[in-house]
């Protein structure tokens, strides 16, 4: 059974519709999210994560054109109507396919699917991709052959909706240690992590008047750790930190990378 579903690196990802047509049920649904589907930078994260799932031989599928925004930004903006409309449609699709387990690269989708859908009739086991990747490494399904990141200083920016919102602090850090990188913490980390400035629908509007933008403040904290890489676990944080690093004209020396991209660089079979 496992082998039958095993997809090889570079292969196209199956959609749930295709799987269902063949009478198959994947082990896990990969919820790509809007950023992961449309944003050029975030699409790289999507692809890196897909590579990893394929390397690990996980049977998975995506919803493709049947996926729609979870409603997170609408809800945080105060539009509960739109959020619940989105939720109702998505839950119909997910329940229609009998989905049990979801993994997503976006902490906002993760939080909404995990915490806000159950009351509306959507009950799934929901994982952030860093949690699934950590489990795959622990179970030996994903081999990590460190080296390329050995000695590199990596600081991890906690996404609010992964960290404080859901208490996931260790999964991404465990992976950073696994690739032999030197994990360096910012002065605000974990429970006291500073937001990148994108949450609560801020991503889609101009900031209010102030002294500086939140992503600049956070980037300054990251730069204080003298990192080679700023690691993120959220496509929106990734955008904000990338902009911050560019603003400080450090993009030639410091990369902003998702945990999946870090791991995709070293994981091999």
């Amino acid at each position, binding site marked *: 059974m496992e082998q039958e579903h095993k997809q090889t690196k570079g292969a196209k990802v199956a959609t749930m519709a295709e799987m269902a047509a063949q009478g198959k049920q994947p082990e896990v649904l990969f919820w*790509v999210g*809007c950023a992961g*589907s*449309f*944003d050029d930078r975030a*699409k790289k994260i*999507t692809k890196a994560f897909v590579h990893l799932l394929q390397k690990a031989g996980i049977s998975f599928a*995506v919803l*493709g*054109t049947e*996926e*729609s*925004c979870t409603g997170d*930004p*609408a809800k*945080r*903006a*105060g*539009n*509960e*109507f*739109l959020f*619940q*409309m*989105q939720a*109702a449609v998505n839950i119909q699709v997910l329940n229609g396919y009998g989905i049990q387990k979801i993994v997503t690269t976006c902490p906002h989708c993760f*939080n909404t699917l*995990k*915490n*806000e859908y159950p*009351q*509306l009739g959507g009950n799934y086991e929901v994982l952030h991709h860093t949690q699934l990747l950590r489990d795959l490494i622990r179970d030996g399904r994903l081999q990590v052959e460190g080296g390329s990141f050995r000695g590199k200083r990596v600081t991890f920016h906690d996404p*609010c*909706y992964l960290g*404080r*919102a*859901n*208490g996931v602090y260790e999964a991404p850090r465990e992976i950073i240690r696994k690739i032999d990188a030197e994990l360096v913490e910012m002065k605000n980390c974990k*429970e*006291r*992590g*500073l*937001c990148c*400035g*994108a*949450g609560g629908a801020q*991503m889609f*509007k*101009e*900031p*209010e*008047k*102030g*002294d*500086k*933008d*939140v992503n*600049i*403040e*956070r980037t300054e904290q990251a730069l204080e750790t003298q990192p080679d890489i700023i690691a993120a676990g959220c496509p929106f944080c990734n955008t904000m930190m990338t902009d911050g690093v560019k603003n400080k004209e450090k993009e030639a020396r410091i990369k902003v990378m998702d945990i999946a991209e870090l791991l995709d660089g070293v994981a091999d079979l």
Partner: protein
Amino acid sequence: MEIVPNILFVVALAAGIGYFSANVRKLMRNIRLGKTVRVDGPVSQRWKNMARIALGQQKMVVRPVAGILHIIIYLGFVIINLEVLEIIIDGIFGTHRIFAFMGGFYDFLIGSFEILALLVIVSVVIFWLRRNALKLQRFWKPEMKGWPKKDADWILYIEVILMTLFLTMNAADLRLQELGSAHYEMAGAFPVSSYIAGWMSSWSESTLILVERGAWWLHILGILFFLNYLYYSKHLHILLAFPNTFFGRLTPQGQFNNLESVQKEVALMMDPNADPFAAPAEDTPPPDKFGASDVMDLNQIQLLNAYTCTECGRCTSECPANQTGKKLSPRKIMMDTRDRLEEVGRKLDANKGNWEPDGKQLLDDYISREELWACTSCNACVEACPVSIDPLSIILDMRRYLVMEQSAAPSDLNVMMSNIENNGAPWPFNQMDRLNWNEEN
């Protein structure tokens, strides 16, 4: 006329407790102006949270300096208040140090009260210096101007005065015990006040009795005054921290509540059998207001939160919007909510309990839209609060009112929301292109 002081004492005690209870009733009346709220989750977990966060002060020590000093003052007040029990019995029955029969244990108690009293004075002085000499930023934000600043300083002064009176009373008592004065039998240990007693060595017995009685009376009257000061002060947290941590959220911080009123509407819209032109039944109540524009639209836990806030500003100092110079301060959200609630309460009192709209509301008259839209919903304020206050839930409820009742979202957000409505993504991309990444390399 031996009995006159006893009567005066009972009258003062009854007046102090009576006025305080009247204010507590007013406070509960005001909190009940809010919407009722389901208190879900295991009660045992709620007790544990109260024990850990309020009784155990666990979240105070996230900031170790303020946290440890606060624990000293907290322990000081809880433990020294055992002495108040003796004072009240002595006051009512005209006895003196009624618990002295406990002997060595009594000495131990009085001795430890004295050491704590000294530690409290030291801690309060450091707190005062942090506010007024070091001028820690969070104590000097715009919302702290005026009464909040004075309130904070007053609390510190009252605490020093009470502790000083307690030690002065003991010092004079010790001198009287040494002189063998009537009524002042040997009892207690005085590790701190014995130093003060040293300065009283030349005082006559009558002066000492005057000082001892004076300090005794001022101390208990001061405590009764402080008790009644609470309702008008941020210091109310010493009581409300307990219920507030009990009612604090048990669900993940990222989980925002789903509005049930909206759930009904959405179910109707999704129902293919529903008649879109059906007239509502005659007895249908008007639909609930979506979100909050005034304190009555908030729930009772949110209003309890407002009374519990002690304006320490940890939320504001962790807030990314505030740190980068935006107008939003989560502490101000809580202070405004309490101020507006008090205003509504006063108008109810003036109007014999009937509410007549006063042309004011929490939105705009207290909390501006600029503040509400600056929030990133990052939960840093919620995490920072040492007594489980949730300013974010109020911000969200007010945004809901702006968006769903007023259609008054910033225009950028309207674009984002119409994109989600039309093409299932916050950006204007076609839903049919969602899988294009799968074709690219």
